[in-house]
């Protein structure tokens, strides 16, 4: 019994860390731009593909083996820097003044486009990039063996979470972004370059999605369709925590992580079912999320 609890605990934590990395960017984008970005799943997939390619390329040369880990943030950055500004400036900025319906539809269209773009670039066959995963070996916790890479994933999630929250709360740029959320007009009047901040926030979200994908790439077979699965999970996470809240993303990820680990080990039949059931329940009982602030309804 105790063993099962330990397994559920660690599995849940690993899964939560993974979810958090992906959902954080989604929550950031929603928080700053008020756009629920369906294409976030595609950014994640792009990150995974880019990482798989870079890891493959790196492995072909006779470099220092541990340098392969640098490829992961590199892939994430590449995706964020290329795709982020392009999408924000090219498509999203035209959507801000329009109804939320169209924002949702535009990111859905983008999702469809990027799905096929990955197929065009990388083909439809699965790509494997196990090097970073196997290089570290395993670690024993009690009687159970875990790959070090999973712990690295947890560590990354914690560090990234702290970095993003320090950036938003402590740096000048971060505070400017918060001011912009509160009152875009007043911010413009005070000389804040709102469009530039929007690009910055969106690109940061894209980097985070890419990082989520890049960290995932060594653990799975990278193949088409991976974005569609992830995006609904990420939605569930940020809905649970509260749309646009950073702590909320952490709370949501932990809740879903443990919930999934528990159902997988205790009632495997309920696995997919439970996550969305909880999502629906939270939406029904507390639509602002477990961690969200209540918003005054504007008439």
């Amino acid at each position, binding site marked *: 019994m105790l063993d099962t609890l330990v397994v559920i605990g660690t599995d849940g934590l690993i899964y939560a860390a993974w979810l958090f990395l992906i959902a954080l960017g989604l929550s950031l984008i929603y928080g700053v731009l008020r756009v629920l970005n369906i294409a976030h799943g595609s950014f994640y997939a792009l990150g995974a593909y880019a990482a798989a390619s870079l890891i493959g390329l790196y492995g072909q040369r006779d470099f220092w083996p541990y340098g392969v880990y640098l490829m992961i943030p590199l892939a994430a950055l590449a995706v964020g820097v290329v795709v982020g500004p392009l999408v924000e400036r090219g498509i999203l900025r035209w959507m801000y003044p329009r109804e939320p319906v169209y924002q949702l539809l535009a990111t*859905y269209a*983008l999702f469809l486009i990027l799905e096929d773009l990955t197929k065009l670039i990388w083909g439809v066959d699965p790509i494997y990039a196990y090097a970073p995963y196997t290089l570290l070996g395993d670690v024993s916790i009690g009687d159970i063996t875990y790959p070090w890479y999973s712990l690295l994933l947890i560590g990354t999630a914690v560090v990234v979470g702290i970095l993003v929250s320090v950036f938003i709360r402590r740096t000048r740029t971060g505070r400017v972004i918060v001011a912009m959320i509160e009152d875009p007009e007043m911010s413009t009047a005070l000389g804040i370059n709102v469009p530039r901040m929007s690009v910055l926030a969106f690109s940061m979200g894209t980097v985070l999605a890419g990082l989520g994908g890049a960290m995932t790439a060594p653990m799975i077979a990278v193949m088409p369709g991976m974005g569609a699965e992830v995006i609904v999970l990420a939605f569930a996470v940020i809905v649970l925590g509260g749309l646009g809240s950073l702590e909320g993303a952490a709370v949501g990820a932990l809740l879903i992580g443990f919930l999934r680990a528990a159902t997988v080990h205790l009632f495997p039949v309920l696995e997919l079912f439970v996550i969305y059931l909880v999502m629906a329940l939270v*939406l029904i009982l507390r639509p602002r999320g477990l961690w969200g602030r209540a918003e005054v309804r504007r008439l």
Partner: protein
Amino acid sequence: MKPRWFWFSGLAFVGLGVMGFVLPRWTVFLLSLALARGLAALSVALLMRAGLVSFGQSLFFATGAYVAAFTVRLFGIREATVLLVGAVVVSMALAALAGLWIARYREIFFAMLSLAFTMILYGWLLKAYWITGGTDGLRIPPPTVLGVTWSVDALRTVLYEVTLACTAVALVLIHLFLESPLGYAVRAVRDNEVRLEYLGSSVWQVIYWTYILAAGLAGLGGVLTALNVGHVDPQLAYWTTAGEFVFITLLGGTESVLAPLIGAVVFEFLRTYALKYAPYTWQMALGGMMLLLIFFMPRGLWTLRHLRFRKALS
């Protein structure tokens, strides 16, 4: 509806009915699927009139389809009319239940909750494989129509005519609904909820009834798809299926009950040819088209109906 449109659509439907006997079998099959999808898109359009985007109409689409499959399995009833009625009734009953909660939400929250609901069904269909057949889904044996067992060849045409008849009836009903006081209230919800409340209408009730009606439509589309294909699988409930309905609605437009249907027919043929000639890029083409529509033709293909008249004037 202006008389001109009434006669136009009447003629179009008679024409489509005749087509069932003339066109090659694969075209008839595609048209059946398109009409069934059109009904689901119409249900999205109905909600969109109230300003609500549902990313979960696949919930009722799949419900309709699986109700048919279960009815055949559990009760051995193979009569198409019974399956149709059963599927619509169950879909609407489910909506009456889900609507109790969902009718309170707008915008993103409505979209998210509808998505969560359909993913719950998807999760259950996928995992409870001893009941639902899991990823493989369930087979539906060829149904009888009006008590007659048709030959395989005839059944294709008969099912098409049934689909067409159901679509026509549904269109007339929805059109009448939209012209009724409640139908006007649906539009008012989108324009200004608060004023509607001040006028003494309950916005909650308007959305609740619209949601149930929309579910009936999606359920009808689902059961018609199931009967035509002869197979149901969990993909019917996945959120991308609901996304497709949203796409079709955007393609056609929401201004007329005919628009989503036209969107569906265009979509189905577009997809068939795109799959044939560009199997890896058809989603990209769809996405690109969707963006173009959002930017330049937000009211959908229905906008094009003005073209001819404007030309005649100039």
